[in-house]
């Protein structure tokens, strides 16, 4: 039993190893272990605060009379050469243990002192911080961006075009000759012409002229979307503005079919409204697409039931369970004739999404005019 040979002394660190009659490695380890235990006991008995931390630090790590200094002086320096390595090694271990324990003690002491700080100094979390003024994207711009990103991710480039257009691009090249009944549905703003202007000028009634301008410049494959402002001479009310926003889409290639068209539109809608939304294509009529469709989604607000969550008719789809989103279709072969594409070899699809309506639907806005008033109380709601 090593303990039996351990000298029973008050403070062994004040004596040399020889004075303690220790001369084998095992006894040395025992000696250091007892010092470690002594330190741990002392530390555990003390409440973690700054005073006790300083006290303990001086007692054990103090440069003049700290325990570790004594051990260095009394045990290490006078140790016989054979035992010096083991004493040094044990001393280092003890030192590391003390330093680490004291650091933990210090952290605990600091935390404790903050906790007891007076209520007077404590922050009132219900008071506001300093809010630096931050701006925001216009809601329409946010929706544009979201839609652009979705189509960009499936290979659609973004292009822009003029808002002041000629009747050729706005109507004729889109297979809408003069006196076509469809022109009656698109009340058009015309511009007073400068003297000698060769053609009449108008404000585009849709972003579709860019279908023509794009195909004039580029051979297939074509995949573009065209965000922009469009104009119709409608008297303003809650659902009509004489300026509004559209995104045109056009894809033309040697192998694009109706299935590719519906697949692309479905992909877009599920990205925009979420995967639970069902889609439906109804045959329709536009002079520049054939077959033409109106595109509906199952009402995302009532889950396509037509019934509002609290009972009663869903206000968004008015009970119809479907919401008409936009018109689209396969590009009419007549359009290819205007841009020197071979209608026998290429096919494609086009669509025109009304952005304002989409934003109104998604965010429950009941007056289109609010988009253009730019009231900061509105802008602030869409940070």
């Amino acid at each position, binding site marked *: 039993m090593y303990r039996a040979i351990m000298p029973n002394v008050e403070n062994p660190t004040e004596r040399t190893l020889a004075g303690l009659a220790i001369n084998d490695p095992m006894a040395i380890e025992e000696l250091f272990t007892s010092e470690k235990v002594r330190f741990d006991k002392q530390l555990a008995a003390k409440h973690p605060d700054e005073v006790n931390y300083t006290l303990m630090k001086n007692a054990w790590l103090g440069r003049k009379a700290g325990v570790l200094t004594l051990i260095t002086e009394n045990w290490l320096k006078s140790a016989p050469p054979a035992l010096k390595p083991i004493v040094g090694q044990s001393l280092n271990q003890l030192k590391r243990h003390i330093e680490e324990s004291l650091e933990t003690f210090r952290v605990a002491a600091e935390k404790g002192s903050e906790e007891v700080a007076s209520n007077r100094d404590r922050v009132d979390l219900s008071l506001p911080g300093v809010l630096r003024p*931050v701006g925001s994207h216009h809601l329409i711009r946010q929706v544009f961006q979201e839609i652009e990103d979705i189509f960009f991710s499936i290979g659609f480039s973004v292009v822009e075009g003029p808002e002041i257009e000629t009747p050729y691009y706005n109507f004729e090249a889109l297979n809408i000759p003069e006196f076509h009944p469809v022109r009656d549905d698109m009340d058009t703003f015309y511009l007073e012409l400068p003297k000698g202007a060769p053609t009449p000028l108008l404000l585009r009634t849709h972003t579709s002229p860019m279908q023509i301008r794009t195909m004039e410049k580029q051979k297939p494959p074509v995949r573009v979307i065209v965000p922009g402002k469009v104009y119709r*001479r409608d008297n303003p009310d809650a659902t009509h503005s004489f300026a509004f926003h559209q995104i045109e889409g056009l894809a033309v290639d040697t192998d694009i079919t109706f299935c590719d068209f519906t697949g692309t539109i479905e992909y877009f809608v599920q990205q925009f409204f979420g995967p639970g939304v069902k889609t439906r294509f109804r045959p329709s009529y536009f002079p520049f697409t054939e077959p033409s469709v109106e595109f509906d989604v199952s009402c995302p607000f009532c889950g396509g039931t037509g019934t509002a969550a609290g009972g009663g008719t869903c206000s968004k789809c008015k009970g119809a369970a479907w919401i008409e989103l936009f018109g689209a279709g396969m590009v009419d072969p007549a359009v290819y004739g205007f841009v020197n594409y071979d209608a026998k070899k290429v096919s494609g699809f086009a669509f025109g999404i009304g952005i304002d309506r989409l934003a109104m639907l998604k965010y429950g806005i009941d007056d289109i005019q609010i988009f253009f008033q730019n009231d*900061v109380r509105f802008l602030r709601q869409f940070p």
Partner: protein
Amino acid sequence: MKVVYNWLKDFVDVTAPPQELASRLALSGTNIAGIENGPHGAVIDAEVSSNRPDCLGHLGIAREVGAIYKLPLKSVSPKPAESAAKTSDAVNVEIQSPELCGRFTARVIRNVKIQPSLKWLKDRLEASGVASISNVVDVSNYVMLELGHPLHTFDYDKVRDHKIIVRRAKPSEKMKTLDGVERQLAPDKDRQLDSGICMISDGDGSRAVGIGGIMGGAETEISFSTKNVLIECAWFEPISIRRAARFLKLHTEASTRFGRGADPEMAELASRRAAELILQLAGGELLAGVVDIYPGKRAPKKLRVTRAEILRVMGADVPDKEVEASLSALGFAPVRIDQNRGAEGSLLAAWECTQPSWRAEVEREIDLIEEIARIYGLDKFPPRLPAARQGAARLPHYEAETRLRDRLIGLGYREILTIPHVAEERDALFRPGGISPARLSNPLSEEANVLRSTGLVTMAAALEWNVNHGQRNVRLFEIGRHYDLTSRKNDEPEPPILTIGATGEAREKNLYDPAREFSFADLKGDLDSIGELAGGFAWRDGGAEWLHAARRGSVVLGANELGSAGQLARRVAEKFKFRQDVFLAELELDPLCTAYLAAKEARRYEPLPRFPAVERDFSLLLPDGTHFSDVVKAIRSLNISEISNIEAADLFRGKNVPAGKYSLLVRVTFQSREATLTDTQIGDYSGKIIAVLEKQLGAQLRAQ
């Protein structure tokens, strides 16, 4: 078009309830606005698209129903009893303008008794939303709603010489239509000789008794004293009808149907059907035969559709039976003509079809494919997402614009979008000289009669709106376009601009800080933060006229003047009734974005200095009119490479500062890349700086 459910049953034995029928119609191409259940049963409100005039009658809708449900269409073949006397002896018709009127049929019924209609007829008209007038007039409306073909009845005895001449309107011709309005049918002689309006006239042709295909005349109208009736059932050329209706601003049920393209073959049948109903309701005797002038008769067109093209366009197959069933039901009489006739599903399958007279707009293979697809069901073509063949590109300045936007938003500006239509006199407040505005020839109002020449006019309006609605602290920006016809290039979008507006407090009062009003320095700092992205702006004296003369500047980037910035001039602010300072700036966007890209490409890492920087402050008294830039220039002229920064740290006038001078605290930072600077070196540089400022600018160093 109001579709009366029970009326459909005259032509097709439909059993599906109205609601289901309506939704099937919607999914095959007839847009449904709603269903009403009234006293006469269900009425489906169908929004018939402009390419489907055949669906502007119950027969046409019934044909659609037959195609959808694969039900046969009942034939319409009225056989009214005829008297011995011949129609051709009673009425004479001459078409002088066959390019406007392709067919004109006439029938005569003698000794009718004009009286109110019977209930069943009144009910159907009422369900269709048409007022009942008298039995004969009601019959013409009824036949139009039934067969989709408009017709007109004359009081036979009021038609002079019992002769009808169909001709073009004469210059300055006028007539009174049966709505009692006196109408001018062609412009005055000197302007345009021919309006291309088709007139129905009587006798020697000098008197107009109707506007062909649009409205009858008042003088030959049926009245309760009418004894003998002349039934006109004709066909008019669609484009001329649309022009005429627009010219006259007169849109009627008849002009809608003829304008979209009525069925020329239907004219005689509809006339016969009307005669049958008049005999039934008003009695009388129908003269034998019909006067039928038909210069526009054409042989039916042959069309072809192939399976190969169906597959190429639609991307999925349609079985032979479905192709044939849908085309047959719609009247296209498909016949297989390929070598593999009889082989189900052959890839070489081809059908020859005959264009029915009521579907003039179906002229091409693609039109037939649309017919097949919509009856077969669009949901039968499985969606698939096609792979992209090439990379996608953003707009050329997408990245630059995004960075600009994000920075402006970080600086506290909210993005706005505006409508470019503004009042001319407001536009003029901001319009640069030498530009004439893009003026609308048909504005909705004088408040919106030109397209803005600059975004400032709409920006000022947005600030105005906010201030007027109690929002006094506002910072806005817009990336938009400005419009100018004089410098317009045909293919390019209108030039983009960045417009900035701010008013009110730069910092609102809060728990910790006092409020501070937005100032020119805020605007300049914000603009310079943007400029940093593009290599940095320079500022020059100048700036636009609409700015306050003492608080404005022009913003320069490289060799380009990008625009102006400053405080809105009092004179302009008063027009908007602004009672607080307003700050505006507008920059051309394209050069800014181009410079952004160039600056980005030129940007290189600069190693961080390893030696400490030393700051020295120089408290100077400078003569008024000396600019900070003069101070910087003088110090830079020393070419001391260790000067890393020169900034204005404090500025004041007044107390303790002599008149004609101001006090400027200039902070100079010294830093060497080679070594720590010694006090001696700093002292030496400082001495040189003081000397050069004294010499070049007459600066005095204040005691510190």
